[in-house]
């Protein structure tokens, strides 16, 4: 269950992962990286059975400070990740599906099967909308949703809430 605060384990694991990533940025060749990654793992494993939370927190703090001092100024970022070279690059080609409703009839006539099927899907969406809203209202806690995850359909014959946005989402790499 996700909460507003990170647990100690989560913080340690996050420190470990980002340390490994920055180590990968420093040690370009894989054998050298594996050597220093093993040393890093050994340093983390040395204190993994620490039961005293005060000491564990101090160790974590020292680890974060060491990470800050030794981080790479240009860490490797995957191209599609935030900050990467092709992040959001194809968003300009991702057109929302409601644009199809604004096509000229002569353009729609070029794809009759597709648009007739689309009308059926739209009717289905109208039919299931009230049930989706009712399910979301029933299942959302009083203080607002805790996560962005949507619940599945609970009853037989129902569609999952907000399925339309998922089904009509644009492709990751629009052609």
């Amino acid at each position, binding site marked *: 269950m996700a909460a507003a605060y990170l647990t100690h384990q989560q913080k340690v694991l996050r420190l470990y992962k980002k340390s490994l990533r920055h180590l990968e*940025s420093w040690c*370009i*060749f*894989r*054998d*050298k990286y594996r*050597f*220093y990654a093993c040393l890093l793992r050994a340093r983390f494993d040395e204190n993994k059975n620490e039961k005293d939370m005060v000491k564990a927190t101090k160790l974590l703090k020292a680890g974060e400070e060491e990470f800050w001092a*030794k981080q790479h*100024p*240009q860490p*490797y970022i995957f*191209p*599609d990740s935030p900050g990467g*070279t*092709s*992040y*959001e*690059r*194809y*968003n*300009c*080609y*991702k057109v929302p599906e409601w644009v199809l409703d604004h096509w000229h009839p002569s353009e729609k006539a070029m794809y009759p099967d597709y648009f007739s099927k689309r009308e059926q899907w739209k009717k289905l969406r109208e039919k299931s909308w009230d049930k989706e809203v009712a399910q979301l209202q029933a299942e959302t806690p009083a203080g607002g949703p805790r996560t962005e995850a949507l619940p599945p359909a609970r009853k037989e014959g129902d569609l999952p809430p907000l399925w339309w946005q998922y089904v009509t989402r644009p492709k990751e790499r*629009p*052609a």
Partner: protein
Amino acid sequence: MPSLHIILTTSFIITLVILISPVFTSILYKSLNRNWHTHHIKTAVKMAFFTSLLPLFLHHHTGTELTITNLHWMNIMTFDINTSFKLDHLSITFVPIALYVTWAILEFASWYMKSDPNINQFFKFLLIFLIAMVTLVTANNMFQLFIGWEGVGIMSFLLIGWWWARADANTAALQAVLYKGVGDVGLIFTLGWMATNLNSWEMQQMYITAKSLDMNAPLIGLILAATGKSAQFGLHPWLPSAMEGPTPVSALLHSSTMVVAGIFLLVRLSPLMQDNPFALTTCLILGALTTLFTTICALTQNDIKKIIAFSTSSQSGLMMVTIGLNQPYLAFLHICTHAFFKAMLFLCSGVIIHALNNEQDIRKMGGLLYLIPTTTSCLTIGSLALMGTPFLAGFFSKDAIIEALNNSYLNAWALALTLLATSLTAAYSLRMIFFVNMNFPRFPALSPINENIKSITNPLKRLAWGTILAGDLMTCAVLPPKPPMLSMPPYIKLTALVITILGLTIALELALFTNKQRPYMPKQYFYFSTMLGYYPTIMHRFFPYTFLKLSQTIGTMTIDQTWLEKTGPKTITSLNLSLATTTSNIQKGMMKTFLSLFFTTLMIIILLNYY
């Protein structure tokens, strides 16, 4: 011979018409074939290249030069503005080179941008850019040059921000516009100065009438314009940021053509500068600083396109140094040879990026020599040419520049910086080759590696031939206007070669340390280089923050406070308060003192009136 002039004029006009016609046919003609327009533009540029060869051969064979003035545009009293094209050595040589490089890039872009839905628009933008560049290069007056200047700037903005949904691309495009805009201020100032003092924007008239005038102010304006356009130190951050655009854009605009427009401007107007030691020294020092600073930045970059971008900035600094040495012909020679190998380096990087699924970090490349041999061979040839390897294109221009620098009795500090930058050029070139071509692959196994496509290999091969032959052809075909120093001690003659080999050797030694089990802590100069000298960090944060904070204070507090309080109620209140306090404090009940003061003052006034 008049017939030669007619042939020259006709072939130039045909070249222009061939270039301009696809812009109109795209509006008037719609084809069912999606890629029709792409093929049409590529063919047009190819044809324009072949037609532009005729003036080139005529010029080299007979020395014919021409100025075509065909339209009287406007005049204000005695100030005339005409459309005039100057076909001299500079424009006749540069136009075919630009067209050759553009042909290669367009053919490459037809593969690189194949999956882009707006590929036709992309090609149109590149074509409009090319037309603007040809306008700039062939302009015989400053107004036409300014039109071309702004045209290339606008197309650069549109092409850098091609993937406009990406925030970094928009920032980079804006950065390019702002930094180049600062340079445009200098150019507009120079235009105004020339209109006011020389009463003309025509080149020939300017050269004659400016002889007796103090040209410091307009030349500083021109140098500022070149600083902005050619990414010299101070206005350089836009060039590495411009790598946000697609690789064909980087290859055409930000390496071969647009980025040298500033240097071209100085070369074109070199008759104004040649007798002005202040301007020449400024160019020398600015160029030396630029070339060393950007070379240092390139040493620690991990993005392959940024390495090549900083290399471009460094070479444009070297061109500026050459202008500072009063050798505009050598600067122009370097512009021409640089176009070939730099465009080829960018195209090679584009093939590698596509092959590795948009991977641009050299830390995740490796072993590509065995997988894409043509591309990596061209990358190696381009890097060797960049280093000034003997008898490749870069050698003829770079070696001549270093020799001229060594034999001049000018600034020894600029000489030292340039030599150091030359050595470091070899270092970062080797670093790039080492991480890209050599050792084992560091990328995922399932990468779409394929260079067995004509659209890739043909442009690369053409540019490789250009890299190998262009320097030799240009040096053999054209006599330099100023005779070079022909005899010098061997250590001066071999300086460029020795320092390049030295840089190469040291870089190779350091590269071999990278896969040894030696931990090291990076020093401050590593961070200085990786963070690009902290220049973007300071300039893009400190000054905007200061100005925004000041304007916020003025806009929200100072103005409101002044008009609503200080000019009205609060001032009246404080005045009244101070008057009332003073008046009431005076009344302390000291009647004898008040009366005596009153009578004393009265007596003084009566006596003064009496006398």
